């Protein structure tokens, strides 16, 4: 019986006779602070794509209505809030039909709240991957956020339908809408990475997230316009990075003036969160497999 043991190493013609002069991979205890390895993340872009695709696919695979849920969730919320806040409580809506007003605000809010809830627990939920295979861990919360973006895109189609129904015309302001989507994604990534990394070590975070989401819902002008807040508290409102996104989304969609102050605050906070989370993530990443 021929055994492998009888084969001399290097005998086969397929053996690469010349090894690269530099190691392809070098493994050692890393320094404390590392910059993001963007090159590596780029190398793993297909995995990001597949994990995003998996999240989307799995979410609707066993549901009867499938993708309809993506549309139904904000629509139902819109109907309920239109009845309660629009008709009964009569919350002002900046002279827009309340349904349209609330739907435009709901989309970024729902994207954001889902993104942080799901990405917050994403690393712990992917323990089986983290303890078995190497890849930049950043991909896990990122894929969760990106899969939320797919849902968001579907809802935007409904929003366009609503705009046509209410006869709200497009304007040059719409050009800002994609910018706001990018901003919203960056913000969700930043928060998601922070929370997911912390949650690996401190499971308190998972318990904290629903509370955060609830506070955020009230602190963000989703169901009411920020103009409802008294002048002297406006600054506080604008410190919430979501205010700049939600209010300016409406401005972009419905041809209203932009609030550049809140927009700039959002950009500042989003970038700050993304950069800081990237560093924190890299720092904590190496111990994920030990804790998860």
């Amino acid at each position, binding site marked *: *019986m021929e*055994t*492998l*043991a*009888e*084969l001399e*190493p*290097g*005998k*086969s*013609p*397929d*053996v*690469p006779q010349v*090894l*690269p002069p530099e*190691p*392809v*991979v*070098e*493994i*050692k*205890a*890393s320094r404390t602070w590392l910059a993001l390895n963007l090159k590596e993340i780029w190398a793993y872009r*297909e*995995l990001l*794509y*597949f*994990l995003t695709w*998996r999240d989307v*696919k*799995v979410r609707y*695979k*066993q549901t009867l209505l499938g993708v309809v849920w993506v549309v139904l969730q904000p629509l139902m919320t819109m109907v309920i809030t239109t009845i309660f806040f629009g008709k009964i409580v009569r919350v002002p809506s900046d002279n827009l039909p309340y349904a349209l007003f609330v739907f435009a605000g709901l989309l970024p809010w729902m994207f954001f709240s889902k993104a942080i809830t799901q990405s917050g627990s994403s690393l712990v939920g992917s323990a*089986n*991957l*983290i*303890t*078995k*295979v*190497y*890849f930049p861990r950043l991909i896990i919360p990122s894929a969760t956020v990106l899969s939320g973006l797919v849902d968001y895109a579907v809802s935007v189609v409904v929003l366009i339908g609503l705009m046509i129904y209410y006869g709200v015309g497009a304007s040059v302001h719409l050009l800002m809408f994609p910018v706001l989507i990018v901003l919203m994604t960056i913000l969700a990534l930043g928060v998601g990475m922070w929370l997911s990394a*912390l949650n*690996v*070590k*401190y*499971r*308190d*975070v998972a318990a904290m997230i629903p509370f955060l989401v609830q506070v955020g819902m009230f602190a963000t002008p989703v169901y009411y316009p920020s103009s409802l807040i008294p002048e002297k508290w406006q600054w506080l409102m604008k410190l919430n990075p979501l205010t700049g996104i939600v209010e300016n989304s409406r401005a972009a969609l419905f041809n209203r003036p932009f609030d550049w102050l809140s927009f700039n605050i959002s950009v500042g906070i989003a970038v700050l969160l993304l950069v800081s989370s990237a560093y924190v993530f890299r720092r904590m990443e*190496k*111990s994920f*497999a*030990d*804790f998860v």
Partner: protein
Amino acid sequence: MQSIITVENVSKQYRLGTRDASYGTLRDSIVRSIRAPFSKSQSKKGNGVETIWALKDVGFEVKPGEVVGIIGRNGAGKSTLLKILARIVEPTTGNIKLYGRVGSLLEVGTGFHPELSGRENIYLNGAILGMKRAEIERKFDEIVAFAEIEKFIDTPVKHYSSGMYMRLAFAVAAHLEPEILIVDEVLAVGDAGFQKKCLEKMRDVGEHGRTVLFVSHNMSAITRLCKRAILLGDGQVLADGTAHKVASSYLNSGLGTTAVREWQDLEKAPGNDIVRLYAIRVVDEDGQLTDVVDIRKPIGLEMEYAVLNPYHILVPNYHFYTEEGVCAFVAQELDEHWRTTPRPLGRYKSTVWVPGNFLSEGTMIVGAAISTMDPVTIHFHEQDAVAFQVVDSLDGNSSRGDYAGHMPGVVRPMLQWHTEYHVKEN
């Protein structure tokens, strides 16, 4: 020749206390950081956490095309080394240089999602293992054919039998083509036929010049696949040499398998309200526990059990399996008295003796059961209860004779030979 893998002074430390409470709470950290500035003694105490070195100063080199087995008992540091090589955990000190693309297989089917179809899982799993999309597409048909699941490729894998699931999972993994492949004991799964196929595929991998690090308890797989083996113990390299030599020194050191299983809590022990199992032990001629047996010596298997209901005829029996999952034989008690008489209440110990020069070398995994024959009732069947290693000597007085190579077969009896000789008369 230049080495493709260089491991230098690699150590890995784990903190014992914190491993236990595997994650902290935010409150603990906050409390600690508030306390720290005020009480130095407190923080010093904190630093004195008990630590263990899972690996200590491990170093070795691997040449391109080598297939190296890594062996050692549980806790020897095999998995830690593997995880460091696979970049899942970082070493505490030391460094490793890898001169090639690395693929690691610490588990098959990593990231498989039960809701997704076989087709979808091939793409997903391939991507997780580091294959490019184009590469997966190119090998897709081959993977499906290897897994033998053509008909079910679009069925969600949750409807697969466990065998199909494992076949698909391994098929994807087997088509990974990195220059360095790191494999954990993924072969310990699947049916015998498929295992053989996997071993062959792995041999192919080696023959195509890839460098393979292969961690396993399966000594016959190690000696068959690898030219060289490294024995780890207590986080250190104990031996590094030809696979046969290292494997036999490992087996002789008695570091291998489980020779005893005992159940302290009778409630949780295998059995029912008629009979309950206390313990299963592998013993040598002198009645001493052992998990390594010389091929020439008899092996005793003790079964201790309690009879809780005195109206049943009970037949203890054992099922002997090889590591490849082949059932070597079944043995049941044939005592004339107990074959016809219900066993009164009490505690029993039944022992069967497997003669020397009967089993083949390698691992034997033994399942234990007690049954009643009429009507056929299985009171318990504890699969994989104990295991032991049979080692063959090279002294020349076993059935191996003077042959030192691989001898196939489930049994290796010493048989009588008779040769007649007639002088040729012209």
